[in-house]
């Protein structure tokens, strides 16, 4: 057991020495990996911050039902009463706007009055404006009700006024999916960069590897420093990536906060929690070690 520990200690020392022996090259590799890693960290930070805030944005989900113009007078009031009774739990307020009232409203606006004057009759339909009660699943409720109401006989069209919230939510979901794709891309960057670094290192250390084998080194002994080199590269890159992401989040946070304040919301962009970052660093280190193992096995055949 002690021998095994001594061999690991030696491997770590050798890996560190190799990393320091070519400082510029090592730094470039670490920088490439860390810049790639910083992108998903920033995206994750934005998503983590924005998602809960979007869910809290006060949205008065308004659903407007436009009735068929051929609907008989009084149909809108009758339908409004029915809806109020049938969906009392979901409806907060309900207002029936008759086509005459809507026309009168439009005529009061100078931009519309001239246009309306040339029309032979009232082009507007009766409308029912429904404001839904606030709850976390308001988006799905407005979807369900608007679909149901669109099928009603006198209803010609239904318009959901809070659709932008849903679009934003969908966009965030899309970004969340994109984050996984990005993470996959970064994993490939880590694999490729470490593979190439270790390939070059194995070529440089060819003589040392040959001598080590001559004096009885096992294949594990030969490969071990390269595995640590890959893992160390991964760990150092993760640390630097966290630093880069933190720096990038400062101006980004100010800009996003300005945008959020226009929706009466407060945003404070922060790095993902420490445990997630630590796990990500470990995963990157493992990826680096695996890539190094693959590379050294291919490039130093016995």
């Amino acid at each position, binding site marked *: 057991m*002690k*021998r*095994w520990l*001594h*061999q690991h200690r*030696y491997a770590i020392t050798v890996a560190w020495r190799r990393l320091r*022996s070519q400082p510029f090259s090592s730094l470039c590799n670490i920088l490439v990996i860390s810049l790639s890693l910083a992108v998903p960290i920033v995206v994750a930070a934005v998503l983590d911050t924005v998602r809960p805030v979007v869910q809290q944005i006060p949205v008065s989900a308004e659903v407007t039902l436009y009735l068929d113009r051929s609907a008989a007078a009084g149909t809108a009031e009758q339908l409004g009463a029915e809806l109020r009774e049938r969906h009392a739990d979901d409806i907060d307020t309900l207002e029936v706007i008759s086509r005459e009232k809507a026309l009168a409203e439009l005529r009061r606006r100078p931009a519309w009055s001239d246009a309306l004057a040339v029309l032979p009759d009232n082009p507007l339909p009766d409308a029912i404006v429904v404001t839904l009660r606030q709850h976390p699943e308001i988006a799905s409720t407005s979807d369900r009700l608007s679909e149901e109401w669109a099928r009603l006989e006198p209803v010609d069209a239904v318009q959901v006024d809070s659709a932008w919230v849903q679009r934003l939510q969908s966009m965030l979901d899309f970004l969340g999916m994109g984050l996984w794709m990005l993470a996959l891309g970064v994993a490939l960057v880590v694999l490729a960069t470490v593979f190439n670094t270790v390939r070059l290192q194995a070529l440089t250390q060819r*003589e*040392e590897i*040959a*001598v*080590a*084998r*001559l*004096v*009885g*080194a*096992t*294949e594990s*002994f030969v490969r071990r420093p390269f595995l640590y080199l890959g893992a160390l590269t991964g760990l150092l890159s993760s640390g630097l990536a966290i630093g880069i992401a933190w720096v990038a989040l400062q101006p980004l946070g100010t800009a996003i906060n300005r945008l959020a304040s226009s929706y009466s919301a407060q945003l404070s962009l922060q790095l993902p929690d420490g445990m997630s970052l630590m796990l990500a660093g470990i995963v990157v280190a493992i990826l680096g070690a695996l890539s190094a193992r693959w590379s050294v096995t291919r490039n130093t055949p*016995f």
Partner: protein
Amino acid sequence: MIEFQHVFKSYGRGRNILADINFRIQPGEFVFVSGPSGAGKSTLLKLIGGLEPPSRGAILVNGHRSDRMPPRARPYLRRAVGVILQDVHLLYDRDAMQNVLLPLAVAGLSPAQSQSRARAAMEKVGLSGKEGLNPVEMSGGEQQRLAIARAIVNRPSILIADEPTASLDEDSARRIMDVFRDFNRVGVTTLIASHDRGLMASYATRTMRIDAGRFTDMPGTL
């Protein structure tokens, strides 16, 4: 103990470098292998050191069939055999001490143990005080002695050397041979490939002559 039984070695479909080699070397012997260049001396040593497998035949080193050893076990055989190749294969990116420490790191010794053993090995080959020198700063004879220190630091039971005095003047060559003789006197089986008849006459207890892959003069042939 080293034993070859009907050993053949060829590369690809080429001619036999070694053909039907049979011999036995008892523990503690000091044996020279002589012969002209290209006779197969180096190949013979590489087979003993487990650096290459035979094409046919059985090789026993310290009672183990090295030709049948799985690749994972071969490194452990190499630790029991100190090998000094014609090209000393020193590492020029580190000092002499670091070169000698490498086999001890391979064996997994603690840094303190390694330091003490490496110093002792350097002292035995007469390189005390030169631990901090880079091998490139050393003479040919010193480099050869450094390679010997690296080969013996793990206390092998067998020491094999391929033309260790080839590029040295007579004085340096004798100093190197004295080092080998000293190790042999404490029980290390020593096998040296050389074509220097003067050295053989002074040091050998037995000489095996090889030519074109076959023994031509071989006391102790099986």
